[in-house]
């Protein structure tokens, strides 16, 4: 398996185009493989005859693995400078750098029978001399040279964090003084001592809950895209309705309808599986005292805006009074945040940790919009619509298509 790309570690066989016994020319594509990036061809190292194919279709092989053999004449082999692969190095342990304590270098002495060993314990570790990364080519696990580096948490620091229920995010404010800037136990205690004298109060349960959810969510690669939307159709439609749905509910309903058409957009990636929910239940972020509550509107794709309005109002009211039950907040697949109510135009809100998507709605503002038809600027109520997403599950294209569809739906709100 050749290295077909810089970051390629392994590839899966898609097709094998030759049979044993078949004549091949140099650089002929004989195997098709798929990496995490693309489908690519494996070519012959030199001309000859296919002797054997070890690889199997759908099998995944690491770079350097043997996929098969080409029998070549000595002249061909020499011309292309291909040799049989070296057998793995036998004594890997000797290759490990920096084992000082037990690393006593055993050196056979040159005298007499040569069966005595001289041990030199004064040898200092040879690690951390260069800034480049060394990759062990022998196929075994690389062995870290020691417990060093800014990210290293000693057993003591870990135990103390566990005791105080601290997370790594809590340590962000500590500039470590240890090796390569690691946070030592003394740094931690000094930090804790420093905040001891400051005003501290126990955060409310809701604050703690939000903090925990945001910290967990932030472990993912989150991205946000945005687009302008004209709210005038929504405002006109709203005026005709009774009871009157809020702009956030229009957004919620549009999101649900769009997700019913593009359900993969809300899939959650867990391990090697994309998990998709059976029903499209969408949450809405509601500011309550000292935190955020997210009640969930069930089957928002199957219920018309008119039917949703009363239920939605009840949920929001319960949320504001913090009277929601666990059932009323569980199981959403995406949520809506109307940060426009705070006068904000744009934001990059963080999706809930068990959700992939969060649709944000900015404040509506009168703005001049160019009209192609009339060849002039016309006043319109514009708002920014944002979509924050887990980039593992969704890309800019998928997020953009979902967002464009929502814009389309909001342009014709009477159908929602």
């Amino acid at each position, binding site marked *: 398996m050749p290295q077909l790309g810089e970051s390629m570690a392994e590839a899966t066989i898609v097709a094998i185009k030759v049979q044993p016994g078949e004549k091949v020319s140099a650089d002929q594509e004989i195997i098709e493989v798929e990496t995490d990036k693309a489908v690519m061809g494996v070519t012959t190292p030199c001309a000859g005859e296919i002797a054997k194919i070890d690889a199997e279709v759908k099998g995944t092989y690491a770079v350097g693995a043997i996929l098969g053999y080409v029998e070549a004449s000595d002249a061909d082999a020499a011309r292309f400078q291909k040799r049989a692969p070296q057998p793995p190095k036998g004594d890997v342990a000797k290759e490990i750098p920096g084992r000082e304590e037990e690393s006593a270098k055993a050196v056979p002495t040159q005298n007499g029978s040569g069966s005595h060993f001289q*041990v030199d314990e004064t040898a200092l570790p040879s690690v951390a001399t260069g800034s480049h990364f060394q990759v062990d080519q022998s196929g075994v696990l690389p062995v870290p040279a020691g417990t060093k580096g800014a990210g290293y948490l*000693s*057993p003591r620091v870990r135990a103390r964090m566990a005791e105080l229920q601290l997370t790594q995010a809590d340590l962000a404010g500590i500039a470590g003084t240890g090796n390569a800037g690691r946070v030592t136990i003394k740094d931690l205690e000094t930090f804790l001592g420093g905040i001891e004298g400051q005003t501290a109060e126990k955060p409310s349960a809701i604050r703690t809950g939000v903090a925990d959810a945001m910290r967990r969510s932030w472990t993912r690669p989150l991205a946000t895209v945005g687009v302008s939307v004209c709210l005038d159709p929504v405002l006109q439609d709203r005026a005709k309705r009774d009871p009157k749905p809020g702009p956030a509910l229009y957004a919620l309903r549009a999101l649900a309808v769009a997700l019913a058409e593009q359900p993969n957009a809300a899939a959650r990636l867990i391990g090697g599986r994309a998990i998709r929910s059976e029903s499209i239940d969408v949450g809405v972020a509601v500011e309550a005292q000292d935190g955020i509550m997210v009640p969930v509107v069930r089957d928002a794709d199957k219920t018309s805006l008119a039917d949703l309005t009363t239920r939605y109002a009840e949920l929001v009211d319960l949320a504001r009074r913090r009277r929601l039950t666990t059932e009323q907040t569980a199981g959403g697949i995406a949520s809506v945040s109307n940060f426009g109510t705070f006068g904000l135009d744009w934001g990059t809100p963080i999706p809930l940790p068990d959700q992939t998507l969060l649709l944000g709605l900015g404040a509506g503002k009168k703005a001049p919009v160019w009209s192609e038809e009339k060849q002039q600027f016309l006043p319109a109520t514009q708002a920014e619509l944002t979509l924050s997403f887990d980039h593992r599950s969704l890309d800019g294209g998928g997020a953009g298509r979902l967002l464009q569809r929502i814009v389309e739906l909001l342009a014709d709100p009477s159908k929602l």
Partner: protein
Amino acid sequence: MSVTYLEAIREAQTKLLRDDDRVFIYGQDIAGKFGGAFKATKGLAEQFPGRVLNTPISEDAMVGTAIGAAMEGMRPIVEMQFADFSSIALNQILNNAGTQYWRTNTSCSITVRLPSGGTKGSGPFHSQSMEGIYSHYPGLVVVTPATVEDAYTMLIDAVAIDDPVIYCEHKYLYYHLKAEALPTEKLPIGKARVVRPGRDLSIVTNSAMVHEALAVAQQFSAEGIEIEVVDLRSIKPLDTETVLASVARTGKLLCVGEAFPWGGVTAEVIARVTTEGFHLLDAAPARINAKDTPIPYHPNLWTEHRPNAKTIAAKARQVLAE
């Protein structure tokens, strides 16, 4: 008045012979004018006739005889000329003395004195530290006094113990170490002692290395780094509690031993701290021992062979920099 480490051993034996009829001392050339290779029994044969006895040059026979005497209710002290030669008596010490209580429910209250550790020019057969070997075997108590006071009180306690006790006295300390007077207080066998308090690093050590560690601690103190030094005193039983308490204060551990590096006391201490106190460690524990070769004769080589203040300091810096 001042008392050397060696004099404290002689004084302890004098007191034991005076206070307890069951005590006698058994060793090569210890009676008469010679008074033992290091004069630890000088004058005692005259003072206590018939109770300080010369033996044949057979460590095996010496310990065997002492075990028999102990069975008959005596409390013999066996003096080995050098710890190194106690290996000739290993069968008697490990197989007979060590197991006796468990086999027969009778006590085996012998004390074997091992003049241990290195001095300049003593070479491979007169310099070794054997405490690790003896501690490995069940049924033995092993002590390594590092101070004049401990040399005195631990020898008296060793004789009082019903089990066989290996008493490792360090030859380098015989004349180098002095105290004002004999002690009036004691710490029992089985307890380690914090000989210097600190907050940045624990050096856990024993015997002559305690003094090397103290020199290092002194040197670091000038830089504002406070090293805590723990003298194990008793190797078996080992006072894990005091060691863990020290690591709890400092978060970092360096074990120093004069014995060879394979296994032994430093390895045992680190094994205990990492298994029972992993959560206390803010850096990987380190240890420094003699080199894994026979002990050289040449004074310069000998100085480099065993841990010394310089090499301990270098290792301490490594651990402190973690």
